[in-house]
């Protein structure tokens, strides 16, 4: 009371002067329009660029104008608040743009060869002048390689997670957990080189009269290395969410621990584990580098993953992209569309499954 009298004597208290002043929306839009206009005038006046530069400069001018005008009306702190808010919103728009572009190109370029021929034939006897040719062999390869990798990685990964959650105590378990996390960051090309030097160059000559053999199975092994840590991590998280009383109930009924894990803990966590596995499968299906190194990449249909080179969808995209034929880009884009469709369907299904999962809520 006394302070107010001393500092601002004679000011009538009305709603207008006790509320914080806000920048009206109209002025805000006005600054934006003015910024864009000045930017357009500068850019086209001097002839130094096109509409992209207009937008970029417009945003810069808008930020400066906002800082000045809002600083006058609202004070410098609120003005800075506005500036950062604008920048953060701009970051979001900037990130959506490439994704939209990728999706748009995938669909518009991918439908060109989206026909029965593409899904029914291989690249066998397809020369540079042939517009036909398809990805049948690549789809077979991807399914078999990822399937075998899943068969190996899921039991290993789930058992590893069981160790970490149910049995693991002390330093060794912590070490394992730490290196599972580190292993998720191993580049896929290193996993490919590992299988190349271990399986293709050292082990496979034993079965193949001394010559290295590139095969779909080797690609599966490389994908296993990449899938394993993802599966261990997601399964571990799910197993930790299983309520302790469920386990104790089983123990109280005299069920041994291994049976409790198999019959109580795993079924409870199953939906979450399936989600994690699907995400890992989606990631593995899109891997190119390891397959490029060890699968051989044949042009014909090969159902046998243990003998002869195999193709995969991701590798097919890469090879067609590097092909000199004028029909190759269309094939590459259609294969990319197929690959993204498979991966996204798996990912979205996994996420929806996770949302319905009662444990992780």
């Amino acid at each position, binding site marked *: 009371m006394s302070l107010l009298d001393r500092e601002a004597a004679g000011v009538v208290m009305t709603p207008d002067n006790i509320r914080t002043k806000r920048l009206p929306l109209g002025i805000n839009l006005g600054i934006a329009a003015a910024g864009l206009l000045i930017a357009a005038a500068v850019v086209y006046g001097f002839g130094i660029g096109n509409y992209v530069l207009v937008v970029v400069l417009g945003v810069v001018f808008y930020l400066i104008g906002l800082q000045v005008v809002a600083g006058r009306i609202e004070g410098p702190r609120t003005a800075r608040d506005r500036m950062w808010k604008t920048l953060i919103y701009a970051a979001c728009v900037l990130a959506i743009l490439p994704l939209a572009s990728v999706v748009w190109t995938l669909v518009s370029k991918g439908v060109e060869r989206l026909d029965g021929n593409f899904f029914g034939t291989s690249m066998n006897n397809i020369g540079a002048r042939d517009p036909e040719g398809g990805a049948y062999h690549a789809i077979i390869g991807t399914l078999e390689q990822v399937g075998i990798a899943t068969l190996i990685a899921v039991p290993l990964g789930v058992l590893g997670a069981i160790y970490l959650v149910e049995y693991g105590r002390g330093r060794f378990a912590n070490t394992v957990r730490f290196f599972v996390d580190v292993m998720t960051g191993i*580049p896929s090309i290193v996993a490919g080189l590992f299988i190349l030097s271990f399986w293709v160059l050292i082990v496979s000559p034993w079965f193949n009269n001394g010559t290295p053999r590139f095969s779909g199975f080797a690609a599966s092994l490389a994908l296993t290395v990449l899938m394993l840590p993802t599966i261990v991590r997601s399964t571990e998280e799910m197993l930790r969410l299983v309520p302790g009383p469920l386990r104790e109930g089983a123990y109280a009924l005299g069920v041994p621990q*291994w049976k409790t894990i198999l019959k109580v803990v795993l079924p409870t966590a199953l939906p979450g584990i399936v989600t994690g596995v699907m995400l890992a499968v989606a990631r593995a299906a899109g891997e190119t580098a390891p397959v490029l190194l060890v699968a051989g990449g044949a042009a014909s249909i090969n159902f046998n993953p243990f003998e002869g080179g195999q193709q995969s969808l991701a590798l097919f995209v890469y090879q067609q992209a590097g092909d000199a034929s004028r029909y190759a880009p269309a094939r590459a884009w259609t294969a990319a569309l197929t690959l993204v469709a498979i991966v996204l369907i798996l990912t979205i299904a996994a996420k929806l499954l996770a949302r319905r999962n009662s444990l992780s809520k």
Partner: protein
Amino acid sequence: MGDYPSSRSENATASDSGVIGRHTRGAGTGVSPSSHDEPPFGGGGGALPKKARFGMEAGFKGLSVAAGAMVLVIIVAIAIFLISKAVPAIRADNENFLTFNQWFPNETEPRFGIAVLAFGTLLTSIIALLVAVPIALGIALFLSHYAPRRLATPLGFVIDLLAAVPSVVFGLWGRDVFMEPVREFSTWLNKYFSWIPIFGGDGPFGRSVLLGSLVLAIMVLPIVTSLSREVFRQTPGMNEEAALALGATKWEMIRTAVLPYGKPGVIAAVMLGLGRALGETIALAMTLGIVFNISFNIIENGGNSIAANIANAFGEANETGRGALIASGLVLFAITLVVNMAARAIIYRRREFRDSAA
């Protein structure tokens, strides 16, 4: 059933003792009676079955321990097998592997070195992070503090989908679609900013470090975003409310409460992104110019990286060539291992700190 062939009541007695022994330590937290070798209470005479030494319990535990140890075995095996193939190739190298800047491993007198590749890997990764990290942090803040829930959930979903798109698709997109805008942008930069060395040169432009880095930035973005978003979300509500109660604007609240709290997590997220950027192969193999010289010019055709070189040179490599590529892969493995271990160590320290504080 394996190890308990006798009647069901005996079976119950045996496991019961284990539970009691464990209950005294941590009831309700879901810890399990992993140690069955504790002596059962009270002795109980002949009613208790003998503990089977090699029963199902021990077998299952052994299996799971083996599966857990598998991870360590794989990491060690990666190092061993890469070294075993890399050493003969490095022995055969007629130049210094670490400092020579050409790559001719397939000739009768192999000469190759990793200097250009290591430089290119670091340059593209660093530019990618410089572009991606501010945007990723902006999106993370938007998702955690600005966006209404109805918008934040689908947008977060979209960012996660961005992470699921295979790298070969980004490579294809970068080469067929994104190259044109980048070439125009490079020409523009060269026209007005050629006095800055990194924008100099006289072309041709397009398949450059800039293109590769920008594609890489798009691929690193989701990782940094999702991890930082989680960290920002965990900021204690008390800290935020305290800042707001002191009259801070929203940005001041974020700067004083959210960012300091999330700093270790953000550093870890950036390092994980760096790990991914260093190891990215196919997208860079398709967008970089694959040239063997060390140059800071980022808009002229050129650029190379360890992983991209492996993908490109593998097709025509002979035995020494393969060994040389494996040797470069070994260097990449070592670098990413160090980066990832550092990032995880930061996250781990933080988690323990939080648990003990709670």
